[in-house]
């Protein structure tokens, strides 16, 4: 059985920026293959693993989606041996100066993001945050070598090394959302020992950070009766002290709002209470900021749920999560799946609705 923490560290270090997920997808597939009955790659690169359930055909299906794509940067120009940049996904340019990165050119090159010294900037910009268009990457090679090895469109990944911290925390880049991939992997491992009625589709989706591309397309081909997005959410900590943050290490969050079907929310919440798995209800007044936002409106519509793993410093190269929260999220998913009765679909209804089939 794959140990989750080393697997997560490996995933964090795999390149796989939005639209270019193949390296990380292969690493996930390697671990999922023995845990599922079928595995395939969707037309836009999402990984679909199917574990068949035991209910008679036509079996209901649950889809668990974790996006595997990472935020990062892209080369826009090569100038005097230095690389100009744009962002892939949401990046605050104020966290970029001095970051170590890997430039995926003709070969992988280590580099550092450079804040131009003030004397090279217009007077009004000195001491201020500098737009991404004025930053650049230095790969410490001669300009001739750089021109040979790098061209516009090459991807740039963050290169911080994953580090475990006392108290069961882990920090590094791309915990958003490889932490959830780790949770789903744990769920698949737990399901090895359990009979479950429903078909389980484990999905590592693509392009969430840019277009929700995987979130729209995988549910269309799978057509699940329930779709759950597992993604990171804001943990309380420096810079996040209001209701939008949830405590780190105190359990996953259960999303509640227009992007979540209340019946699915209720079922998972009651199960967490019964199993004494700590959790917080995450109120989501609008967009959940996850694949669920896309999944909910695929085809004729799908009942959705969002499970969050609290994470500090989101979209920086030093994101931090609690390993316990990953494990709790994975365990809760597995328990929920194991308990899904073949007719649970009938219970996914609105409070004000006539009971289905009656």
């Amino acid at each position, binding site marked *: 059985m794959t140990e989750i923490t080393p697997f997560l560290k490996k995933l964090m270090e795999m390149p796989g920026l939005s639209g270019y997920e193949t390296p990380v997808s292969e690493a996930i597939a390697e671990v999922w293959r023995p845990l599922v009955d079928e595995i395939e790659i969707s037309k836009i690169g999402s990984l679909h693993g199917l574990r068949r359930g035991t209910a008679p055909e036509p079996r209901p299906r649950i889809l668990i989606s974790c996006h595997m794509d990472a935020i990062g940067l892209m080369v826009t120009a090569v100038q*005097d041996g*230095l690389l100009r940049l744009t962002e892939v996904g*949401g*990046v*605050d340019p*104020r*966290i*970029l*100066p*001095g*970051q*170590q990165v890997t430039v995926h050119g003709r070969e992988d*090159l*280590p580099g*550092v993001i*450079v*804040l*131009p*010294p003030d*004397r*090279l900037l*217009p007077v009004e*910009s000195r*001491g*201020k*945050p*500098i737009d991404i268009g*004025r930053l650049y990457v*230095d*790969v*410490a*090679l*001669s300009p001739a*070598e750089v021109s040979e090895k790098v061209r516009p469109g090459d991807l740039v990944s963050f290169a*911080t090394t994953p*580090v*475990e*911290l*006392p*108290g*069961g*925390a882990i*920090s590094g880049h791309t915990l958003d959302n490889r932490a959830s991939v780790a949770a789903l992997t744990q769920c698949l491992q737990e399901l090895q020992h359990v009979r479950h009625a429903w078909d389980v589709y484990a999905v590592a989706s693509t392009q969430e950070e840019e277009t929700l591309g995987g979130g729209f397309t995988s549910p269309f081909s799978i057509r699940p009766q329930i779709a759950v997005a597992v993604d990171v959410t*804001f943990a309380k*900590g*420096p*810079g*996040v002290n209001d209701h*939008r943050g949830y405590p*780190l290490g105190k359990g996953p969050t259960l999303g509640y709002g227009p992007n979540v079907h209340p019946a699915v929310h209720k079922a998972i919440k009651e199960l967490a209470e019964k199993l004494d798995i700590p959790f917080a209800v995450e109120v989501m007044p609008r967009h959940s*900021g996850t694949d669920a936002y896309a999944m909910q409106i695929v085809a004729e519509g799908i009942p959705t749920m969002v499970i969050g793993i609290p994470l*500090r*410093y*989101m*979209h*920086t*190269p*030093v*994101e*931090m999560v609690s390993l316990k929260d990953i494990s709790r999220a994975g365990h809760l998913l597995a328990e929920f799946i194991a308990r899904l009765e073949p007719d649970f679909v009938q219970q996914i209804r609105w409070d004000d609705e006539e009971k289905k089939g009656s």
Partner: protein
Amino acid sequence: MKPAPVIGADQIALLEKLCNAVAVSGDEGEVRSIVLEEIKPIADECHVDALGNVLAVRKARQPNALKVMLAGHMDEVGFMLVDESEGGLYSFEMVGGIDVRHLPGKPVLVGRSHTAGIIGARPIHLTTAEEREHTIPLDALRIDVGPEGKAKVGDRATFATRFKQVGPSLVGKALDNRLGVATIIELFKNAPENIEFQAAFTVQEEVGLRGAKVAGYAFNPDMAFVLDSTPAIDLPMWDDSENTQYNTKLDAGPAIYITDSSTLSDPRLIRHLAETGEACGIPFQFRQPGGGGTDAGSIHRVRAGVPSVSISVPGRYAHTAVLVSRLSDWQNTVSLMYEALARLTPLTAER
């Protein structure tokens, strides 16, 4: 005369060890231990003074030799933890000059045990466009050592960058001034016989050139050479106009100081270095006269005065998490200094 020492795998391995060590001003012990291990066996005299400077001497092998001081600071810029809040979070202040814009999103090493910590930032999702127009202030940042991490107020911290060699370059934190330290160690191991070699590995340069002042007094040298790292700002101007404020350039050899904000270099020593470079075919450059300062700022004013000059390995991105220097510039610094020392005569200081 023996040829100048060559920088090979052993020297680079020592530089790596020096760069990965943590020695924020006032807490230089880790680098000091490495320095002592390297030089004590070959020093004629060696001691650690009241501030923590390492002062070591190799005697001349001829009479009436000049006493020549070579100084390089061991300390690096960093942080000190100043307040603790619940759950492994610490407020911190700068030790030495660091641009606050370089802090968000960095792994750091805390305390003597190199405890892992990170400096995060508010998620972009929760920031406003207005907020993003302002630098994240120091008081909004914390060093986070994990929910049960062990650190204490007063601990030093610095960037967690690991040294690496990349193509023609040396990449790491604290190349300012482990390059100077490594240069002096190499020269000390290959000390020319014509001079009394006074090596000062100094403390607290980054907080006011303080170690060098007492080191200069203690040695009472005939002249001093300060080995340091100086910014190479050989990068494009925002409007692509000619960059006339580059300070120094990579690949152009060691940078000889004419003047900075704390020192007017001794013209005889400037001339001696330049003539040595020309005679030996060693490339060198003059650092553009301007701001900045080195230990020479303290040393040239001790006692009745000490003729002093600084010579630096150029490096990009000083006082940030990652510096970039060229191996060739380091080699040429070692070569130029070695040849210049070997050619020193009492006349050098009298012309």
